[in-house]
């Protein structure tokens, strides 16, 4: 790679970073917490640097898909470490952040019923709903981030919304009946 090419690539990455690093950082903060979020952001943009020619014209879904993989990889590694530590120490070990992504996102919610309802959803349903509601992706963008067709996404989104509505109804009724707030209980 010549110096000019390297310079042009740097400029492209900088433009990409300034346009979307905030969104990627917000996504990462909701999933891995504030401390580890910047590490995730840097890893995502290192991947973008290596695959700059693969970055599409609408890069946000691609970057969030990448961030999703990075976060999943971090969690797998954390779980392996926990398993290995347990194996070496012959004792059970309590992980710092069990199944981090949902736990992290839900622990930040002030709406206890919403946290409870989201925790009852499958990982796929929750990720899809959060990509649309929190990351502000359109259906087409979310489909690209999750690697599925727009039709498949429309069906999944419809079902996920229905499940969330049902879970939310249950959680609201439970809270109204005077049951302890699950979010507070978790803390």
């Amino acid at each position, binding site marked *: 790679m010549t110096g000019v090419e390297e310079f042009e690539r740097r400029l492209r*990455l*900088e433009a990409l*970073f*300034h346009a*979307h*690093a*905030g*969104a990627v*950082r*917000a996504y990462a*903060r*909701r999933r891995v917490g504030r401390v580890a979020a*910047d590490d995730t*952001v*840097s*890893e995502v*943009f*290192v991947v973008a*640097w290596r695959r700059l020619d693969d970055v599409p014209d609408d890069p946000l879904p691609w970057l969030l898909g990448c961030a999703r993989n990075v976060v999943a990889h971090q969690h*797998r590694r954390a*779980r*392996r470490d*926990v*398993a*290995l530590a*347990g*194996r070496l120490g*012959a*004792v*059970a*070990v*309590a*992980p710092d*952040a*069990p*199944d981090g992504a949902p*736990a992290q*996102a839900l*622990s*930040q*919610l*002030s*709406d206890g019923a*919403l946290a409870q309802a989201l*925790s009852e959803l499958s990982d796929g349903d929750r990720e899809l*709903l*959060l990509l*649309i*509601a*929190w990351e502000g992706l359109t259906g087409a963008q979310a489909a690209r981030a999750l690697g599925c067709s727009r039709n498949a996404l429309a069906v999944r989104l419809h079902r996920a*919304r*229905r499940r*969330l*509505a049902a879970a*939310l109804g249950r959680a609201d009724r439970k809270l109204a009946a005077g049951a302890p707030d*699950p979010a507070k*209980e*978790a803390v």
Partner: protein
Amino acid sequence: MSNVMERLRAGNPEPGCDPPSIEIVWRRLESEREVAAGSASPDRTARLGVRRRTLGRLGLALASAVALGVAALAVALLAGGHSGSGGAPSVPQQRTGAPARRRAAPAGTVAPSVSAGAVATPLTLRMLAVGRYCNGEGMQLVACRPGQRPVNAHPERLVQLSLTARRSAEPHSWYAWDIEASACPQAGRAGATLEPVRAGARLTFDALIPAGCRGRLSASVSYVTQAPRADSEHETLVGRRTVRLP
């Protein structure tokens, strides 16, 4: 249902976020380059050499297999030709009855990954009484005898996860387990088998959950095999079970 999405949007804990400095990316790239430069060592060259030799062997095996296939086809065609005109019944193909060749771990350093079908088995999750528990034989938790020191400072619920191992676990493979309570993340327990496990053995793992913990309790067990790279593993799900804490 649009109200649901509105409520979800309103609950966004990080609605906006300033981008960090791009320096974090350049620093990371720089450190990765330094690591890569440092690892262009004889070790890496040796690994590449092994990879090339492996590819060479694979190519040779593939070429042999193709040649054998062509030869077998030619023999079959010739035999068909000798048997006369097209109406003759073909000889049924004989099976040797030889067992399927097992993927062997190269030189005892790694174990091959396994399919989910080979290890999947139902998990049993028993919820025992809330109380103080002591170490019994084989790291199992049991009710304390008089004078014995309990492992838990406060009364806790003992949860026992058990399963029948369908596959043996050797030095390069093991069963990893994980129990977590959705409402009490700090109560999660995880671990793995330490000793070799023979197929058919009953495995039991214990976890203590705080007495006041409610909600879902989920348990999962995986069969883990060591992968060629020292820092990676193949993980195959053995089973998953979710119950509601009483």
